[in-house]
Every structure is written in C-alpha cells, then in structure tokens.
C-alpha cells in the first residue's frame, strides 16, 4: 500500500513538474505551429531571474515578477524576430529558435558565470509538511504541486470558457476572418508566445532551486519536454497533462522495481549460462532502464498513434 501511494503521489509531483515545463511549449505549438527549441532556455532564464530577484526582495515577489519579465522577453522575441522569420516557413523558425537557445545560454554564462548559482528553496517553506512511510514531504514541494495544478485549471478554463480563449482559438485556425472581424491577430500571436514563455519561466522559478540553477540546465531538460508534448499530442493541453503524469508514475514505479529478466528466469527455476553481451542484457533491472522508458514511450507512440494521446493532427 505504501509503495502504491508513494508511486502515485511522487509520480504526480514529478509529472506536474514536467507538465509545467511542457505546457508552454505545447501551447505555442498548438496555437502558432512554432516548435520552440529555445523553450527550455526560457525555463533557465526563469530560474536565474528568480535567483536574482529573490536575493533582493524575496521569493514571493520573484514568483510573480520573473514570469512577467520572461513574458515580456518572449513577446519581444515574437514581435521583432519570430514574426519576420515566420514568412520563410517552419524550417527558418526552427533554426531561429535553435540559434536563440545558444544565444541565451551564452548570455546567461556572461552574466551569472559558468558555475551553478546558489538559488535555494525559500526558508519559510523549507520544512517537512508531513511524513509517509519514512519519507518526508517538503512544504515547498507541495506548494509547487498546488501551483502547477492551479496553472492547469486556469489555462484550461481561459482557453475553453472565456471570450479571449475563443478569439485565440479562432485566430489560429481562421486568422483572416478573425482579422476582418476587427481583432489584431499578430497581437494575439504575440500574447500567446509571451504566455508560453512565461509558463516556462514560472516552471524555472519553481524548479530552479530543486534541480539546480546552472547554464547547462536548458540543454539537459530539452529532450524530455519534447517527449511529453509528442506523447500527449502536439498542441493539446490536456494531452500534456496526461502524458506528464503518465511519465511521472511510469518512471517512479520502474525505479522501484529491481527485477531483471534474469531474476525472472531464476524464480521459475532455471539458470542461464550466457557469457558476454547477452548477459548484460538479461541482467539489466527495470530500475536501470527507467530513465529510458519515456523515450521508449515516445517511439511506441509515434508508431501506433502518431498524433499522440489527445492530438488532432499527425506529427
């Protein structure tokens, strides 16, 4: 029972972190068709801004100010650069965001140096909220979980229940008609891009202190974010949520299992006498391959259902 609770709860916590990381990306892709390679860079900027701001005026202001700055940066990037590149097609956009990734990494190194900075969990949330089967749960981790759930609910209701969401969705499929109805479509795109970046920035604020804030963090986070949005379905917010939690639970469960093919063979009473490479393969425990599982899921998903869980178009 304890194991099941831990797996589900930890899977949820980790999954919501992944969701926050990828929701902005899937939003931008779903709405604008731009695959933003620099998404993780905005996540990194969020962490660094939060580090700098919380050093002077505390964590709570940083939680609001840092994403706002990132949103502004994102909007400016869209307005003055991405919009111009947009007319040359998707390859140009992709290359642009790819370049942006490196520019941001270099800028961060120039400003904050190349070693990790000391961005820590705020003291007033740095205590154990409750314990379950020997594992303590930090108040900050629960706070992060709650914020990410709130973000999902807010995003979902804005996009589906409000007028703004209606205009955004219409602008994406029928930009000319929306434009002729008097709405400023480029402005809508700019706001969506800014919002997507702000979400990444917020994830950076919340996760930078637990994952460590350093110039290489964007690079190491890149791949997993793409797995989430492809498995969930490109452009689907619901899909990103389900895929994130699925990956979170799957990975947590897999790490807990110290079972290998060999141990399975041994329990049914056989011994295998293989030398060399095959031995390595059957000795691999599930916990060892756990970090590869999301990527395996990605491959399987692309084969059997290329549009992802909730997507409405193929990759």
């Amino acid at each position, binding site marked *: 029972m304890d194991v099941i609770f831990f797996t589900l709860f930890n899977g949820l916590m980790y999954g919501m972190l992944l969701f926050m990381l990828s929701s902005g990306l899937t939003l931008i892709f779903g709405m604008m068709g731009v695959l933003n390679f620099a998404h993780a860079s905005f996540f990194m900027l969020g962490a660094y801004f939060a580090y700098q701001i919380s050093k002077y005026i505390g964590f709570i202001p940083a939680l609001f100010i840092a994403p706002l700055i990132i949103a502004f940066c994102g909007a400016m990037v869209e307005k003055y650069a991405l919009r111009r590149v947009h007319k040359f097609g998707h390859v140009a956009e992709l290359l642009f965001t790819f370049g942006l990734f490196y520019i941001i990494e270099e800028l961060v*190194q120039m400003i904050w140096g190349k*070693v990790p900075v000391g961005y820590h969990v705020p003291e007033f949330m740095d205590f154990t909220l409750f314990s379950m089967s020997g594992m303590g749960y930090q108040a900050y981790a629960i706070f992060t979980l709650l914020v990410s759930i709130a973000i999902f609910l807010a995003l979902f209701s804005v996009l589906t229940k409000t007028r703004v969401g209606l205009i955004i969705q219409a602008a994406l499929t029928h930009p000319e008609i929306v434009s002729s109805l008097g709405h400023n479509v480029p402005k809508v795109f700019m706001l969506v891009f800014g919002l997507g970046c702000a979400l990444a920035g917020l994830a950076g604020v919340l996760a930078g202190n637990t994952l460590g804030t350093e110039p290489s963090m964007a690079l190491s986070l890149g791949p997993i974010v793409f797995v989430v949005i492809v498995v969930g379905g490109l452009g689907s917010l619901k899909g990103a949520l389900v895929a994130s939690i699925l990956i979170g639970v799957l990975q947590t469960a897999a790490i807990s299992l110290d079972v290998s093919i060999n141990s399975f063979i041994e329990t049914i009473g056989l011994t295998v006498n293989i030398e060399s490479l095959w031995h390595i393969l059957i000795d691999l425990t599930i916990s060892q391959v756990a970090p590869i599982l999301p990527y395996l899921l990605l491959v399987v998903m692309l084969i059997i259902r290329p549009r992802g869980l909730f997507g409405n178009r193929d990759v």
Partner: protein
Amino acid sequence: MLTNFIKILLLSITLISYASITKAKDTIKIAIIEPMSGPLASVGLDFIEGLEFHAERINEAGGVLGGRHIEIVPYDNAMVAEKTIQQLRKVIDEDIRYVTQGVGSNHALNIIKTLQKHNKRNPGKEIMFLNHSAVTTSFTNELCNFYHFRFDANVDMKVAALVAQMAKDPSIKKVYLLNQNYAYGQSFQKAARKFLAERAPNIEVVGDELIVPFGKILDFNPYVAKITSSGADTVLTGNWGPDAARLIKASANSELKVQFYTIYAGIPAGINSMGKKVSTFNKVIQVTESHENDASHPEWLKEIDSEYFKFSNKSPYSDRQRFMLEMFVKAVEKAESTDPTAVGFALEGMTGRGAHGEIYMRAIDHQIHFDMVLSHVSTDVEKTFIYNNEDFGMAYVTDGWVSKEDLTLPTTCKMKRPKI
C-alpha cells in the same frame, strides 16, 4: 607617405615576430587542453588559472635550468573529445613537448592514444602527457605508457581511501552504492564492492544502483525512497555535478538521515549551489589531497595558498597543479634537459613535498602516491571558502587521513621504456 607607413609596419611586424621567436626559445612550454567554453568551462578555466599561478611562482623564483621560464599555453576543447585531438595536433605542429589535461577521462584517453602513435613514429620528438586529474584506473594499468604521468590518485585509490575511512567508523553498518552508468561510475562501483569486501567486511552492502548519468534524472525521490527502505546509514557514490547535487538535495528534503561518502560531491561550486542547509543536513564527505582548514596544513603551503588567493581571488581547492609543476621542474633540473625522454626517466621515483608528508611518483606505472584526507562540509570552520568575492560560508573539516602506504595498490602495468 603611405610607403613609409608600410615600411614601418613591416619592420615592426618583423621585430615583433623576431622577439616572439627568441622568447619561444627561452621558455619551456606546457600546453594545457581544457574546456574554456561550454558547460564545464569554469572547471577548465580554474585549472588553467591554477597552473598559470604556479608557473608564475616558479618563474619569479628564478625559473628552470638557470633562468628559463615556464610558459602555460591554453587550448580550448569545449569539452568535445574530437576537439581535444584537433588541439593536440596544433600542439604537435607548434612543437610543444609537454601537454597537460585533466577534465574528462575520455579526453585523456584520446591524448594517450594519439601521443602513443606520435611518439612511436617521431623518435626524438616525443611529447609527454602530464595528467593532472583524469582518474580512470586503466591509464596506469593496462593502458600505461612511458610518456604518461598521473598526478592525481586514480579511482581505485580514491575509493580505497573512502572505504578505509568507513572501516574506521563503527557506526556504519549498511551501505548503499549509487553510481552513474558510464565508464567512471562503473569502475567506482567495481572498486567499491572489491574494497568493501576486503577492507570492511563488517559493512553490509544493502543496495547497488547504476543511474543514467549527466543530469538526465530530474527526480531523485524514488531513489531516496529505495535508500530509505533499504535501511542504509551510508551512501557511497561517485556522482558529480547535478547527479550528486540532486541526490543530496532530495535526501535532505525527504529528511533521510545518511552519510554521503563521495569523491566529487563536495566541490565548492557544488556545495554552494546546494546551499548551507542541504550541504550540512547530512554529512557530505569527500576525499582530496589537502584542504585549507586541516590542522596539519604546513606553513609553507599556507603561504602559497594566501599568495594564490591574492592572485585569483579564490580559496585554493586542489593542490595537484602545485606539486605537478614542482616535480616537473625538479625533474628537468635533474635531467639537465628539457627532452621528454630524459625528463621522464628523472620523474620516475621522483619525490616531492605534499600537504601531509612526502609524495612520490611510482616508477612502474607512473602513478603518484600521496596521503589523502577525508573531510566533510561544515559551516563551523576557521576559513570559509571564497570564490570570486563570493563567500560560500562553508568549507571542510578533517575526518581523518589515509596514508599512502594504505593506498598503494598493485598494478598490471608492463611498461615499455625507450632505450637511451
């Protein structure tokens, strides 16, 4: 007017290049190939700065062989193994006869293999590799080579030191091994199992885990849960960088009480990024050649340390660059030559001054031997660690020393020596 200007320009170019040629003849060049850009640049740049400081110190004290200066020539490999080879080709083209490197054993392996071919094909133009930090044990075992000298303890020796200290602590009963799944982590795991069985048979191994390396794991909670349920009181890990920081953070946040025996988890930038609370919540123990707050830290080394602080605005962390250059200079003086073959023979068995007694370069495998100190991170220290004006508020407290005799391990090296 213009022709005059061109004449002056040409003349000055000739003069400058002439000046640099004469300067090049006087100095003994040591090329250093490290990351100066990319995510690990800070590590590479710190090593280069340390080496430049010690070269400067030697030059100011009168240089080598009656006044010749040592010149450190940095090359950037951006932490890409192919670039290391490219830069090494440049070193060869520029006729630099000594090369040093340390960040990343795969880079060191490239240097060893490239130089092996070069030295075989170009007799009389051999290049020596002074390895200051690449710790893969095989470099001084089956891959050993006359022109390679290692000035850091290898993985096996470091693990032996960690286990020796663990054996002294009767409170340690159950240990959990957690390592990164690549060459270094696997050799750490293998050595740990071997030495625990041989030297600390009372300690039970309750877990043995290999994880995907290089910051790919974001969530260490499942591992913390496994360590908790295994009942381990100590975690023995070779993890470094984010893989170490996240593990230690996750343990502290989950209130898991264990000791961490590590090689690299205590490096200054790492403990600063984790913060005081996390770094001291559990005992994070590291193994190094010396540290500033040790009671037996000799006076002469304290002086060098404070000079280094004035030079770089950083507290000293590794002492290897110092004794590597000192022993190199001693070998050049002894050989009365700058030829790598002669210097190589002089370096074999060479002794030097260490932070805790004499250090020596073992002749059979070119592996340095020195006493190693186990220390843990603490805020209650005499001198806190300072890095570019930022006071980390922490440093290290000695847990114990392991003598070099206890760290002398057998080698499988069968070295082919050049004929003179």
